[in-house]
């Protein structure tokens, strides 16, 4: 009963979002929502790691950046056509898969602290690499590039991102409910017990981290396509922090929470940046979110979605 009801709600939301560009004539809103979709995909990939397996990564920006630069480089150095886009996509998937596999293999058997530090280190390495390899990346300044024609239209791109976001959501849902996904949930519940039941825990963690990395990479691709520009900021700590904030505040381990978190953060960012023009305190908006984030981790580990679910569950019980 509950499931059908939420499916219905989601359906309405999606319909609503589909219709917006045709009803509401605001370029700003369109671009903003597109960003929300893109970051929702990124945040969902992060939620897979944090919410479903319980791994804290400080280097998620790494995959985001790889995707962003790959498409940029291909579009710039070759031609902005569909075929090259496709190749860039393949390369992104390959690169992110290999790197997340490699890093996962080496570090997932260590304690959470080590994984966090190591991903921080690798992420930093990529940032330095992007800064120094000027011939490829043009360093800090970055570069602009053209995109294939059909992606040029804002509305079409909006719809593509919306569809992709829903797709990723459904795919991840499927993944979690699959036998593979169940093992991963079991690992989150009680790693030792799952291991003693004969499952190679490391194996499953790596699979999940590869899936996560690949999805993050594709979101990075979408990001730079939307801007037609890429620079070292895609590898910055800020990006990883965004994912963290969105996932935690929205609700870890819920997938939907990542989408909601993305919406909240992106809208707040936009709104507060506008407000900053009037009063400087709004420039420091991130403190506000930082505090909410800390409170969320301490008191509402389930975030908004989780807390709502719990409230609804309690009401149903009566």
């Amino acid at each position, binding site marked *: 009963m509950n499931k059908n009801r939420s499916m219905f709600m989601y359906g309405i939301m999606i319909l609503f979002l589909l219709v917006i560009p045709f009803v509401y004539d605001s370029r700003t809103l369109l671009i903003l929502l597109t960003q929300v979709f893109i970051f929702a995909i990124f945040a969902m990939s992060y939620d897979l790691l944090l919410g479903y397996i319980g791994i804290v990564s400080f280097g998620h920006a790494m995959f985001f950046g790889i995707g962003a630069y790959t498409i940029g480089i291909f579009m710039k150095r070759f031609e902005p056509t569909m075929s090259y886009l496709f190749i860039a996509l393949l390369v992104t998937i390959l690169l992110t898969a290999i790197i997340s596999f490699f890093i996962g293999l080496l570090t997932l058997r260590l304690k*959470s602290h080590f994984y*966090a530090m*190591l991903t921080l280190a690798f992420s930093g390495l990529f940032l330095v690499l992007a800064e120094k390899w000027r011939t490829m990346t043009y360093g800090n300044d970055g570069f602009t590039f053209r995109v294939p024609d059909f992606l040029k239209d804002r509305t079409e791109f909006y719809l593509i991102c919306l569809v992709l976001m829903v797709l990723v959501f459904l795919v991840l849902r499927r993944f979690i409910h699959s036998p593979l996904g169940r093992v991963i949930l079991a690992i989150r519940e009680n790693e030792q017990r799952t291991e003693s039941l004969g499952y190679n825990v490391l194996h499953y963690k790596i699979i999940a981290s590869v899936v996560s990395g690949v999805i993050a990479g594709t979101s990075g691709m979408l990001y730079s396509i939307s801007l037609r520009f890429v620079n070292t900021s895609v590898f910055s700590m800020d990006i990883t922090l965004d994912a963290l904030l969105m996932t935690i505040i929205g609700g870890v381990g819920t997938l939907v929470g990542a989408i909601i978190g993305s919406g909240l953060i992106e809208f707040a960012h936009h709104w507060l940046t506008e407000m900053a023009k009037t009063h400087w305190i709004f420039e420091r908006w991130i403190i506000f979110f930082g505090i909410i*984030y800390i409170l969320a981790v301490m008191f509402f580990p389930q975030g908004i979605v989780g807390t709502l679910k719990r409230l609804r569950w309690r009401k149903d019980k009566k």
Partner: protein
Amino acid sequence: MELFFNLTLNGLATGMLIFLLAAGLTLIFGLMDVLNFAHGGLFAWGAYSGTWIYASTGSFFIGIMGAVATGMLLGWIIEKWMIKPVYGNHVQQILITLGLMLVLSELLKVVWGPNQISASPPDVLKGSWVIGDIIIIKYRVFIIAVGLLIFLIVQYILKRTKIGLVVRAGVMNKEMVQSLGINIHKVFMLVFMVGAGMAALGGVLVGPYSGVIHAGMGMEFAILAFIVVVIGGMRSFPGSILAAILVGLSGSFMAYYVPDLSLAVNMLLMAVVLIFRPKGLFGLKG
């Protein structure tokens, strides 16, 4: 050889600054199993508050004291309200301390503005001595001296006092220490505050060394400190000073000869150590 000497001095000074950060991290991690990702924020707050107090009072010494006091106060608040409640849950700890780092850095900008602030050493420490061809910058020697002093003091406390004994025992077996009737939470608080104080000290010292302070410096030094903590052995106090000197020296030499690679090499070193020798190069055995 003048170049070599200069690079060495520079490396040692930087090493000592990193040591002040890393020492606290090592003690806190060793005893409490908490990796304080907000430690860099304490460093930055030490820098800003210390420099400001120095500018307001005209006394560098008071500035240092003020910075350390600020650090310890912040440490007390953080431990009591944010670390203690989530004690035992690693994921929450990591997330909270990271968020705290963010908030601390941003708060700095709110209080002191987003721009860089310049800092210079007090007159008595300005300038340098000249011995033959070699120029020895006084302030660098000062930093090295302070670092060594702190190391010796803490080492003495650890080895020769009851509280130090309790801390060392706690690193080895927290449960047993409690079973012997010792309130381990008080010890945690003390260690956290001392660690925070040391971080703040590092911060206030670095200002005149590099000439400017900015809100991002906390993160920069923190990353180096993490590298040092890992290389030196996550729970080894003597390991942390050795590793800090190593990282400081290597950074100094590389910054001169191959500047592009220096940070990358440090990170690579950390990655390698984490992967192949998680106990660090100088860590405790077993």
